[in-house]
């Protein structure tokens, strides 16, 4: 891992000193809340979820710090490799993927199962940051220079959409668009795309096959599928509402513990937290996430390189999307998509991916003053 060149003669210890430990502490705090909720979800048992989650978090923490200590220029120079690797994994899902609940999303690696789409969200950020870093400010104004990054986004979106995972596909589109926005792409271009989509929908819609239409409709309105998703959302809202202001108490959530709440250890873990700790618990968690995101944004603003800025901000946006979509979904504001709550939901891949993303943010912070040329050379 330590192939990165040390800049300005900084030694490893010095770098460790540079790490933004408050950020690490926040991440640890959030993950700990996750352990507690997983402990509760298993009715007061560390197994099967909490203990495994802790182990994965320990591994992830090391990976995060390792990524953070690697010179940012290394990441700049090799930004397309992780992207390419994860994209290959995504394509591998298509061929070797393991099917769960009607969708192929997992790669079975014997020890654990990998969901490549989680990684792609962050490697995509890396690749886009790399691309826009190289681009002249004037070039951003030229449409032909936007074709490559559009292609970078489109590849994983198409692959994910085929799984089928419309939620993640839209997630990547949104994240990619946000990076376009902060990179400085002019607003009228977004307006044109939005207009084009509005025109295209009525044209494309009749061309879709029946099952494709059905899939989109179910995605948009879960009531069409009352046996499953409609039931999930109703039970989630009941759990949330019955929690009230102060909650029903740790491990006392009736909706969660009597199994009315589905997927309480993964996608609906926020519901369980809000049921057991009430409005205070829910707002508290939102506050922690807000602080985490604020750190990310602050680090992005502080960075002197466009690569660092885009990277930190891009990671922050992806994490924000995770949090927002997941919580809005469990509260019945958005369609049901299989999306975990970062750092808290059970699930190794997402945990590793998010920690890896923050590793990049830390790297941006540690090397915040590094001057970087267009191709990653010392500036």
């Amino acid at each position, binding site marked *: 891992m330590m192939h990165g060149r040390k800049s300005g003669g900084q030694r490893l210890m010095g770098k460790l000193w540079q790490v933004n430990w408050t950020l690490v502490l926040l991440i640890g705090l959030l993950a700990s809340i996750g352990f507690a909720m997983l402990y509760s979800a298993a009715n007061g048992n560390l197994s099967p979820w909490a203990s495994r989650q802790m182990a994965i978090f320990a591994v992830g923490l090391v990976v995060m710090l390792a990524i953070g200590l690697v010179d940012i220029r290394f990441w700049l120079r090799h930004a397309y490799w992780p992207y390419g690797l994860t994209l290959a994994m995504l394509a591998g899902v298509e061929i070797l993927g393991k099917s769960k609940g009607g969708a192929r999303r997992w790669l079975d690696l014997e020890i654990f199962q990998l969901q490549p789409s989680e990684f792609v969200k962050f490697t995509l950020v890396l690749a886009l940051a790399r691309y826009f870093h190289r681009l002249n400010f004037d070039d951003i104004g030229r449409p032909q220079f936007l074709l490559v990054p559009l292609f970078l986004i489109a590849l994983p979106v198409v692959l994910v959409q085929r799984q089928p995972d419309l939620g993640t596909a839209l997630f990547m589109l949104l994240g990619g668009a946000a990076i376009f926005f902060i990179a400085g792409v002019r607003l009228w271009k977004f307006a044109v795309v939005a207009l084009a989509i509005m025109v295209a929908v009525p044209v494309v819609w009749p061309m879709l096959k029946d099952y494709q239409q059905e899939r989109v409709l179910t995605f948009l309105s879960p009531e069409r599928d009352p046996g499953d998703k409609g039931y999930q959302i109703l039970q989630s809202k009941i759990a949330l509402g019955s929690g*009230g202001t102060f909650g029903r108490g740790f491990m006392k959530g009736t909706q969660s513990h009597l199994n009315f709440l589905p997927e309480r250890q993964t996608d609906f873990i926020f519901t369980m937290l809000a049921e057991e700790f009430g409005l205070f618990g829910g707002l508290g968690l939102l506050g922690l996430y807000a602080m985490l995101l604020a750190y990310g944004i602050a680090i992005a603003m502080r960075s002197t390189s466009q690569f660092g800025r885009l990277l930190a901000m891009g990671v922050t946006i992806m994490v924000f999307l995770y949090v927002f979509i997941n919580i809005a979904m469990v509260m019945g504001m958005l369609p049901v998509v299989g999306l975990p709550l970062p750092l808290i939901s059970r699930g190794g891949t997402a945990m590793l991916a998010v920690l890896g993303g923050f590793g990049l943010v830390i790297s941006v912070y540690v090397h915040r003053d590094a001057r970087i040329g267009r191709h990653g050379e010392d500036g």
Partner: protein
Amino acid sequence: MKAEKLRAKVFSRRAAIVAGGQAALFAGLGARLYYLQVVQADRYRTLADENRINLRLLAPPRGAITDRFGELLATNVQNYRVVIIREQTGDMAATLARLAKLLAPDSFDAARIRHDAKRRRAFVPITVRENLTWDEVSRLEVNAPNLPGVGIDVGLSRHYPRGAQMAHVLGYVAAVSEADLTDDPVLQLPGFRIGKRGIERRFDARLRGKAGNSQVEVNAFGRVIREIRRQDGQPGARLALTLDAGLQAFTTKRLVRERSAAAVIMNVHNGDVLTMVSSPGFDPNEFSAGISRESWRRLMRNPYSPLSNKVLQGQYPPGSTFKIAVALAALEAGITVGHRVFCRGFIELGDRKFHCWKKGGHGKMNIQSAIRESCDVYFYDIALKIGVDRIAEMSRRLGLGEKYDSDLDGQKAGLIPTRAWKRAVIGSRWQKGETVVAAIGQGYVLSTPLQLAVMTARAVNGGIAVVPRLALRAGAAQPDFPSLGISAAALRIVADAMDQVVNHYLGTARKSRIEDPAMAIGGKTGTSQVRRITMAERAADLHNNKKKRWRDRDHALFVGFAPVTAPQYAVAVVVEHGGGGSKTAAPIASAMLAEAQRRDSARAAETIAAVSSS
């Protein structure tokens, strides 16, 4: 570098916009959370409780029924059944195979059990077999270690210790049908039984009790996690009947010798029904357990209609027993003992001949000898004198042709014809010949054995409107029946004549008399035709009952009372197609009254012995 600065500036501005957008969206999440958890908290709290809390009804045990002395007639017995729980049993097929070795293998349907088990959740007990014997229960208990997931459940089921003897009085219980549903939630309990006939139906509300309930916490799959609260129900009330179980047993035994018969004894003063038997009967226990299709079909096909209570529902021409009502009507209408009629075996009315049962005729008859010897011609004469409406009026006062406002379930009204009735229902004028036929309880006249017993009771109890009843009322709550307004002299004359029917050497029922003067009975015989006798048959003597098919034979009837000196009991016996009333019905009634009085004195002796020994 200028471009670089510009790029940083654009980034900062746009990052700030993104941050602002994120903050706004987070605020939206917070607002939504507030809305759900504060504004809508109560609503969702209720929904959550509805989710997790299940109200389970606890069926109340049904009240016992006893006879007047406290002997149990209907009770609840524990009913053992084997259940199997899929998730605990492991290998279902193996367990069932072991069960088959312990129980009779053909006593349960393994395929049905596997089918049920597949359709229900794994923790729901599936009934393998009900109504285990003690022997089977102990065999299962001993082998319990080899039978994982097999358990024995105890439920209550209705039991009638006296079986068929009480079947018609008590009725039976059976599963709730759609039509029975009321707002009592207990009716919706699976396996709940309600009274379907007789006392069980009449007093269902009292016997049923009130359901308790248990609040249990369940999980999303319906499995009970724990009991939160329990409210015990109220068991059904115990009900004592006026019946004497011993007398009922005696009567039943006496009646089974006939193919189809009904008998009832009631107290002439307070209306207590001491025995009420319709034969043949059925075993009501079969119904509590859930009657098999085979048994049901057998009951339905039986030509002697075992399911109906003939005491209340059998409507028969009363034959000569009706002469009691006719005689009282005549006496009240001014006919005196001095009125005499010469019976030469028939009367002629227009071109029709009406015969007396005695071919050669009775000779000179007055009202008492006419009752004693059951002279038809005498009654033709007085009936024509007073008219059918006066007869009907007296019949009504004596309790014929009506249903009693009482606790006897399923009564039939019978029929007492009048001129007005015929005009309204048949649509033609009343004929004199019809009055003649009615005078001897034939033609349109129909009554139930219960009504005949009531008629007799009212004729000998001093003329009060006694109403029969089955629920025992203790002590002070004795009913106060109004007088019927019949003169004491008329009642005396008819009672004396009924005395003579049995105790006079010319009486039609003299062979059934009881010698002990303290227990002597009085009564009236009746033989009612079930079809018109043609002239040809009469000439050929083909109407002799012994030569007819059972279905064509006359009904044998007897009504009576005892003791003659101070009447206590009234009896009515109808033997369907039994031939002659004096020959078939009177001996039964006599034996019943003798037994009723014997039991009385035996109890009196016991009481005296108990008092003196203490």
